[in-house]
């Protein structure tokens, strides 16, 4: 084989190798293309079938927006809809939501007093640091509230409020885009809390401190609830107030002892009045029993006197017969009998004889010595 043949054979070999490489590459690319195509077909099939299924839990509703427009609302169950970006699902919680309003509760300091940790109120209250309310009689109180509400109209709730991207979460904190500082929250919970705080302030501003704290705290809570509910209804944001609880109400810590003194004094006054009422009941009973006794005695008297006079009449008639026969004897007999029976019972008997002058002299020692115990015992015997 000449040298030229050798070169030709080498080129042919290179060409064949190149072609084989290209064919292998083409096959690989073709395979990759087919794989990618399959993947895309699979994705398309998935997108139009399984990918659109979603579950709605019992404690939520789902609002479906298709190309931005609300098309339907789903309650608990299993549904299909075009996935994002054609459809957008927004889950609205319909279970009970809770908001705690502690904006008006005290910020107590804990100090050690006589070896015990005790809450101590500050001598002054600073706006922004210490939460409190002004009552109608210009006093200060602290209150702590808990609101339970539920979303009754998810569509209204979603459309009329500025909901966070996930409405089941708390309101989003908004930041100033320039300074980067947090400037508060925005959303339905913020709105509801502000309305509730406003209702609390308005009702508290008409209450007496005693009424809000002790005497009419239930009516106070009801008044706040009523006002808050009417304000929420006016806004028509699709929620219903389930319950509003006055978790705590307190006088400023610095004045708690003085308020306690009032409670003690009120209790004491109440006790005194109750004792007086008990006395009145006793007196009424005594009066009734005394009156009935007096009347009963009178009745007895009435009966007795008639009975006595009747018996006397009988007695008199019998004596009269004998008296008419022998007046003096009867009189002396009766007199002697009476005197005898009388004198039997008389302890000391003194008979003063006449002196020679025909007069009687008697000397009485006033203020005699008291009888001693022995005399008494002798008497008993």
């Amino acid at each position, binding site marked *: 084989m000449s040298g030229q043949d050798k070169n030709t054979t080498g080129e042919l070999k290179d060409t064949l190798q190149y072609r084989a490489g290209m064919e292998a590459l083409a096959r690989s690319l073709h395979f990759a293309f087919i794989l990618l195509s399959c993947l895309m077909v699979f994705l398309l099939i998935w997108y139009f079938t399984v990918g659109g299924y979603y579950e709605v839990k019992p404690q939520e509703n789902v609002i479906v927006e298709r190309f931005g427009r609300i098309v339907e609302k789903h309650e608990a169950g299993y549904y299909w809809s075009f996935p994002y970006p054609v459809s957008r699902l927004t889950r609205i919680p319909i279970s009970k939501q809770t908001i705690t309003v502690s904006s008006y509760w005290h910020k107590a300091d804990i100090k050690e007093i006589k070896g015990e940790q005790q809450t101590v109120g500050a001598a002054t209250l600073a706006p922004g640091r210490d939460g409190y309310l002004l009552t109608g009689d210009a006093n200060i109180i602290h209150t702590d509230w808990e609101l339970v509400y539920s979303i009754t109209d998810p569509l209204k709730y979603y459309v009329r409020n500025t909901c966070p991207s996930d409405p089941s979460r708390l309101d989003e904190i908004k930041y100033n885009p320039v300074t980067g500082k947090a400037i508060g929250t925005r959303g339905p919970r913020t709105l509801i809390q502000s309305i509730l705080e406003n209702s609390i*302030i308005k009702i508290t501003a008409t209450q007496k401190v005693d009424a809000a704290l002790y005497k009419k705290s239930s009516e106070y809570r009801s008044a706040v609830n009523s006002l808050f509910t009417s304000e929420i209804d006016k806004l028509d944001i699709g929620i219903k107030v389930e319950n509003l609880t006055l978790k705590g109400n307190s006088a400023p810590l610095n004045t708690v002892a003085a308020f306690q003194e009032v409670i003690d004094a009120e209790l004491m006054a109440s006790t005194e009045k109750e004792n007086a009422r008990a*006395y009145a009941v006793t007196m009424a009973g005594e009066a009734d029993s005394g009156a009935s006794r007096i009347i009963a005695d009178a009745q007895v008297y009435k009966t007795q006197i008639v009975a006595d006079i009747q018996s006397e009449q009988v007695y008199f008639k019998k004596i009269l017969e004998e008296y008419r026969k022998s007046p003096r004897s009867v009189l002396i007999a009766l007199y002697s009998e009476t005197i005898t029976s009388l004198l039997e019972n008389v302890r000391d008997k003194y008979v003063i004889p006449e002196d020679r002058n025909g007069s009687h002299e008697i000397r009485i020692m006033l203020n005699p010595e008291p009888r001693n115990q022995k005399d008494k015992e002798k008497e008993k015997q």
Partner: protein
Amino acid sequence: MIVQDNGIRRTRHWPMLILGMIVSVIFLFAIFSFQVKSTEIAVVTTLGKITGVKEAGLHFNWPWPFQKIHKFDKGFHCFDGSSGKMEETYTADGQPVVAEIFVVYKIVDAEKLFKSLTFPDISQAEDKINSQMRNEKTAILGKYKFSELVNTDPSKMKLNEIEERMRTGIAPIVLEKYGIQVESVGIKSLGLPEKNTGNVLNRMKAERNVVAEQYRSDGKSEAKIIKDQADNTRKLKLAEADARAKQIRAEGDAAAAGYYSTFKEEPELASFLRKLESLRKIIPSRTTMILNTDYAPFDLLKTEQSLLKEKKDK
């Protein structure tokens, strides 16, 4: 797809082309369209100029940087002020108070709002609303007495009126300038400057002492009244009973008097018997009696007893 054409293998790519076209359409669709949610309103700017305001739905647009989309929430916003929200202000009667207010607003003219902002963020509009809120709060609270902010008589408490006046003060300006409609204004905290709260707390303590003393005093006096009434009632009942008893006794005496006619047959004997009966009743036991010999039977003790004397003489 591979097909045989006159013994030559040819690959047909049209299914792939269709697939590629679908994907391309999706991408193009994504690039040249945008969605506005039901809760939003969008302002479209083309090369910096406002060219449209879009409501909820699917809309087409030129991609960035030709057109930009600025979206705003059109639901209720609740804004409680930013700087100066806890500042001190004075009522008409000179009482310093610290009031914090909030506004509930919604965007009704997104174009106007967008024009009023240097950058498209609602917080910038809120800063401007805040200054209006501060002005109105100071001005309106200054027209009312402290007793019109808090009063136990609800008809004299004018917080509703104050809020409404604040709203009517803020709303037209904000609507005119920023296209924002203020739905309501509310007070969310009402207090006193810190230096004044100390005096209030001291006054509260003093008032409590007075109230406590009042309770004690009232308790005692009411208890006394109740006891006195009970005593009076008792006396009255007993007096009535006495009167009734007298009547009953009188009835008894009257009934007894009917029998006295018998005694008229021999009044002296009747009188004598009565006296004897009285003696029995009057003289109790353990009585000390001092008698002289003038009374029978002690007259027997006399030395010159007449009967004995007579016997002696006989």
